[in-house]
């Protein structure tokens, strides 16, 4: 049976520092059919050139219109019926794509399958003040919305990611909430299949000053219910 093609969208803006390791982890996937799309938003640090040096990686060059727009551009170029995302400073474990594909093939009703993540500290990286143990499981690792492998049908039905101008970094959450509201089941693999890197430069939206977008996402959902 021909393996299903998985498109992986990697948005990058001046992320050359970790991009090579990221792409290396994608190329090393044990799923045999991968379509890697790097969306470079005008990097000046050689990110696009670095990505073009990887065999089998397509690179889209475009102006910087934000992370959501880069992801949507990647969606427009993605060839696979299954689509994943990898931030340019993170890495996938070798079996991530395969395990998520297997799950979606076994569960045709599920629209997106998430997975847990490991947390990796760069040498010398300070403990960020936003980093807290997972609320459910008590460890540091948690589940990133970015970890999802999506059916293309999800985006056909919902459209792409909405803008960061209003949603801040909550555009992932907003998409998942729309998926749930549309009745598309969201599943979770309890195994950590990707690795987020703590390098002291990460941003997070859940600290107090960044909560406004989350309120907007939840409020919009609440209003859509009534």
């Amino acid at each position: 049976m021909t393996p299903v093609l998985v498109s992986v969208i990697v948005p990058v803006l001046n992320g050359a520092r970790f991009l090579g390791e990221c792409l290396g982890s994608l190329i090393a996937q044990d799923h045999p059919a991968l379509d890697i799309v790097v969306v470079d938003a005008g990097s000046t640090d050689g990110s696009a050139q670095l990505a073009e040096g990887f065999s089998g990686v397509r690179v889209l060059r475009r102006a910087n219109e934000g992370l959501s727009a880069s992801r949507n551009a990647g969606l427009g170029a993605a060839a696979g019926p299954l689509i994943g995302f990898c931030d340019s400073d993170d890495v996938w474990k070798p079996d991530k794509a395969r395990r998520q594909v297997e799950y979606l093939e076994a569960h045709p009703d599920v629209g997106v399958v998430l997975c847990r993540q490991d947390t990796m500290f760069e040498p010398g990286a300070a403990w960020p003040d936003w980093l807290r143990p997972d609320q459910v499981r008590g460890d540091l690792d948690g589940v990133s919305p970015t970890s999802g492998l999506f059916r293309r049908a999800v985006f056909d039905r919902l459209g792409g990611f909405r803008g960061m101008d209003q949603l801040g970094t909550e555009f992932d959450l907003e998409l998942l909430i729309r998926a749930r509201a549309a009745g598309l089941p969201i599943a979770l693999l309890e195994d950590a299949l990707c690795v987020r890197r703590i390098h002291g430069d990460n941003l997070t939206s859940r600290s107090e000053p960044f909560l406004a977008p989350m309120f907007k996402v939840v409020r919009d959902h609440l209003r859509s219910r009534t």
Partner: protein
Amino acid sequence: MAAMRFRSNKPRMVDETVDGETLIIDMVSGSYFSCVGASAAAWIALSHGATAAETARLLSSTYRIATSEAERDVEQFVATLLGDEVLVVLEEGDPTNGGPPALDTPGHEYQPLRLERYTDLADLILLDPVHDVSVAGWPSRHE
């Protein structure tokens, strides 16, 4: 209970009030709560350190209802808020919100106080949101 003062159960609970509607999100359970109109006004007063009696008087004068009705409603409302751990008793030395702000009740008639609780997004609210998203680059330094 009449003399107790309260505060929002921060940092577990985060809240925002817009156009007379308060949204409270429980960052531990992923539940979220909504209250509107007089309920939102009561929440604002209570979470800023007002006693139940003070809150009842505030509602009574704002909505022109009997004090006894307001007192009964506020007492039940406080019990609900405490039961859901949205509100906690203010202990000596706790930080306060500096007293209740002026009430803004745009177009709302008085309705018995009510806190709506939702759990449909709990698993999603608890997802880990870390991203690298400044306009300077992804990843980018937190200024």
